[in-house]
């Protein structure tokens, strides 16, 4: 567990994002420290994807500040944020369907020139995700959803990010694959990478996260350690599919 006084590598203050006239994110604060797994949960339309996309530079913000590694990166285009070490695996995976798996992984390492380092990281990805290795020469569009998710994560890891933003990596995947993906997420945080995880599966997310934020209507309404939120009755009823009277009966 990281101590609370380490300075966060990613620090967001008062972030606001609008689509046309509609304010989708209404001023939120959040932090991610090195090696920390933080999750962001909330109902559909709460603004989770908007938040991650804004942090990665895909969507512009109209208020607040995004500080990464001590710098204000809020004005940088997405390709420069990646170069600084802030990577996003977008909602829906964003695989290049016409490229092979190997080419997808190579685009992940696009900004790097250290051939040996890339090869070593490639091996690491294969160890974490052996299925990816079996499919290297397959056109990525023909992979199963779970395989595509693995490629998307492997590809993001190849850029050697310091902070990885993951948008619903478990979406549409079988429980065993989800478990595998969570194992991978857990093992990358042990190497010092910070992860901000958006998850529908709030139960699982809170179980593995050190800290979590709950978003509602564009605002963060609750935050705390994963464990505290797991035990919070409001969270239990709203996001963990538990009825309050069920809890009372128990």
């Amino acid at each position: 567990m990281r101590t609370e006084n380490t300075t966060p590598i990613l620090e967001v203050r008062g972030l606001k994002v609008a689509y046309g006239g509609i304010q989708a994110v209404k001023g939120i604060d959040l932090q991610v420290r090195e090696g920390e797994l933080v999750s962001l949960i909330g109902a559909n339309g709460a603004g989770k994807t908007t938040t991650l996309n804004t942090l990665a530079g895909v969507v512009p913000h109209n208020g607040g500040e995004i500080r990464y590694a001590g710098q204000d990166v809020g004005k940088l285009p997405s390709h420069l944020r990646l170069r600084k070490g802030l990577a996003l695996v977008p909602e829906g995976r964003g695989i290049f369907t016409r490229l092979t798996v190997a080419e997808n992984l190579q685009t992940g390492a696009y900004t790097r020139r250290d051939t040996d380092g890339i090869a070593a990281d490639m091996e690491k990805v294969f160890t974490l995700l052996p299925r990816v290795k079996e499919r290297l020469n397959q056109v990525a569009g023909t992979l199963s959803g779970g395989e595509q998710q693995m490629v998307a994560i492997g590809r993001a890891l190849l850029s050697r990010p310091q902070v990885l933003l993951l948008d619903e990596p478990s979406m549409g995947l079988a429980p065993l694959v989800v478990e595998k993906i969570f194992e991978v997420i857990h093992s990358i945080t042990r190497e010092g990478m910070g992860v901000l995880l958006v998850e529908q599966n709030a139960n699982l997310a809170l179980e593995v996260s050190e800290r979590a934020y709950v978003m509602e209507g564009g605002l963060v309404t609750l935050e705390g350690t994963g464990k505290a939120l797991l035990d919070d009755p409001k969270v239990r009823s709203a996001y963990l599919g538990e009825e309050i009277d069920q809890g009372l009966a128990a």
Partner: protein
Amino acid sequence: METFLQQTLNGLVSGSIYALVALGYTMVYGILGLINFAHGELVMIGALVALQTVTALSGAFPGLHPVILLIAGVAVAVPVCMAVGYLIERIGYRRLRNAPRLAPLITAIGVSFLLQTLAMIIWGREFHVFPQLVSTTPMQPMDGVVVSPLQIFTIVVAFALMGGLMLLVNKSRLGRAMRATAENHRVAGLMGINANGVIAATFIIGSGLAALAGVLFASNYAIAHYAMGFTPGLKAFTAAVLGGIGNLPGAMVGGLVLGLVESFGAGYIEHLTFGFLNSSYQDIFAFMILGAVLIFRPSGLLGERVADRA
């Protein structure tokens, strides 16, 4: 049989030039979903800049070897066209990327007129003789088949360029970035790819190919003129659509098929129409074939990508 070989050869010469130009259309379409109608003008600029260079050099240093003149002409024409292609994208199209489709299309036509007018101001309205830098002395490898070194040169250069481009696109880091950007600009950015840079590179490469096509075209017809880009531009666009726009091998196949069809059409049109049309109508073949192919294969010969682009 001899006529057949001869027509094939003639068809390959014009077809390989169309293919080079068609690649520029198809690359830009693949990455931006935009038809760059100004692309044909780069063929003209390439030819005229090469001509200007050759004229200036042979004036200053009479007796220079034609091969050196040719290399010098190309060495100036290619970067000039690359710069023009880059500027077209940077000034004309970049800010229209999210505009309705009609806006960049109209801009493209405007840019085309602008370039033609500028060329007319610089080089005048007259036809210029393009010098024979590669020999056009006919050789007769077999009875009834005539081929010139220039024709062989044209085919060899065009095929080498096409092969080089395929290698670049399929094997290099830039090529991967181009394909990734073509599929999804947003995700390419998330991989650290500067999509604007890749798009600019696409215009630059296509423009370089157009410059070379222009030099080959002007050499084969021994003529250069400010409006010479229109017809090969339109034919190459046709070839790109024929092959399936957005698809690189399609552009090459489309260009070659178009060249061959025209050549055979010109050879046989009098028989086919019982003397009603003569070979000066060969241009209609390009568009008849295009019409026919698009009726049966709306996405072109090798195309499947038009439908899946938003």
